């Protein structure tokens, strides 16, 4: 699967003292309902980010992970990037190692009766640190 290869948008990280953001692509070949995003985890230089400090900007909204669940009537279009927003991150050097893990629950591929396939994409990237706009 080279969805891992396209998952993280290269060179997209921006940071200031308060927050950090970067972009990801949907690691799948078709748009999925937002309800498909069942899990999202981020680690910075090996330290997991608390989910209460984690938001996703998509379709003009800023969403916490729990807010994805009821949005089964709204789609993440395959060509749209989502922006990961992190509040209150630790001090960063010239570069930061970011691990991003997402689970997607397929609405249409069943591995057993009424049991959707869950995909797992887990990519670690080293970003140069630049100022946020």
């Amino acid at each position, binding site marked *: *699967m080279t969805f891992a290869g396209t998952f993280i948008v290269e060179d997209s990280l921006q940071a200031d003292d308060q927050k950090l953001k970067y972009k990801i692509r949907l690691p799948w070949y078709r*748009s999925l309902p937002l309800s498909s995003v069942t899990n999202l985890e981020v680690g910075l230089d090996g330290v997991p980010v608390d989910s209460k400090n984690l938001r996703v900007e998509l379709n003009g909204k800023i969403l916490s992970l729990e807010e994805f669940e009821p949005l*089964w009537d709204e789609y993440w*279009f*395959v*060509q749209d990037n989502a922006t990961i927003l992190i509040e209150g991150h630790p001090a960063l050097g010239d570069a930061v190692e970011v691990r991003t893990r997402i689970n997607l629950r*397929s*609405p249409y591929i*069943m591995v057993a009766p*009424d049991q959707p396939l869950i995909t797992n994409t887990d990519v670690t990237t080293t970003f140069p640190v630049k100022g946020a706009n």
Partner: protein
Amino acid sequence: MATTQPPQQPKLGLTFYSLTNEWVSGKYDLESLVKRVAEAGIGPGVEIVGFATIRSFPEVSSDFVKSWRDLLDKYELEPSCLAINIDSALRRDRMLTEDEAADYLLRQLESAHKLGFPTVRTQMGATPGVIAKVVPTAEKYGIKMGMEIHAPEGAASPSVLRVREAYEKIGSPVLGFTPDFSSTMHSLPPGQIEAFIRDGMARELVADLNAAWRLEGTPLDRFEFFAEAAAAKGYRRNSIAHVQMGFNMFGREAVESWQDILPQVVHVHSKFYEIDEAGNEPSIDVPRIMELLVDGGYTGYVSSEWEGHVFREANEVDPIELIQRHHRLERRGIEAALQKQQKHQVSA
């Protein structure tokens, strides 16, 4: 001068699914992709995945409809098939009811009609009840519904046999199948084997993998047979766990198995992974399957569906060029079949 009819044969084309890497990374927009396809001569048939190509899917705006029709007219391409989905697990709290699932399909059929598609590709998730509910609309629009048969299923798998029974009961001329050649491969794709090795499988297990893959039995049984061979050579389970997908994604049914459903074929996914220097697909006998389609009188669209993007990175190969070479290979089979028919007519 006598006028000669061109011989009856399938129409080639592609599904934009082949361009997944390029599409999701934004290399093309719709117009630049259609233009490239036209210039490369890999039409006339254009198949799209509704949920990949169209932002507003399952709905389509009248603006999109107009630009789509203008675009295909301008580049002299033809809409061949709209791949639609039955997202029965759309909600996290429960599965869709039959009415909801039928409504989900109907909205997509409506879009297919507006966009001028003669066929939609449906998937195994549609139950007989849901199919029965949408058939009147498909009949009204004259749109054929081709349920895709994909590895690990084949034309004679129990689940497909159940669909064939349901079809017989409903008895509508719009109901049919979309064979995907992933069901009838003779070998694992060499590039996939290399990817398995890159991801941790020992190279010395290649022969064991091929042998296990060629066994009869369920995908799981065959994978377990391979896992035992690996264990016997001292390899840990986690070094080969990723190989299991190869038993599901790639089917080893005989090419002839398509024969049973040939009269019901309304669209074709000519799945492929690689084309070698000699112009062959190393894991699928493309000419032989095309001969079978021609001999069976199939004159619908055949979408080249390149899925090598599951093991090739973007920019590593150009899917458009690969499809040009794939069309050449398909034409080899078509021409061989037509030549045989001609000889038969001459001698008859």
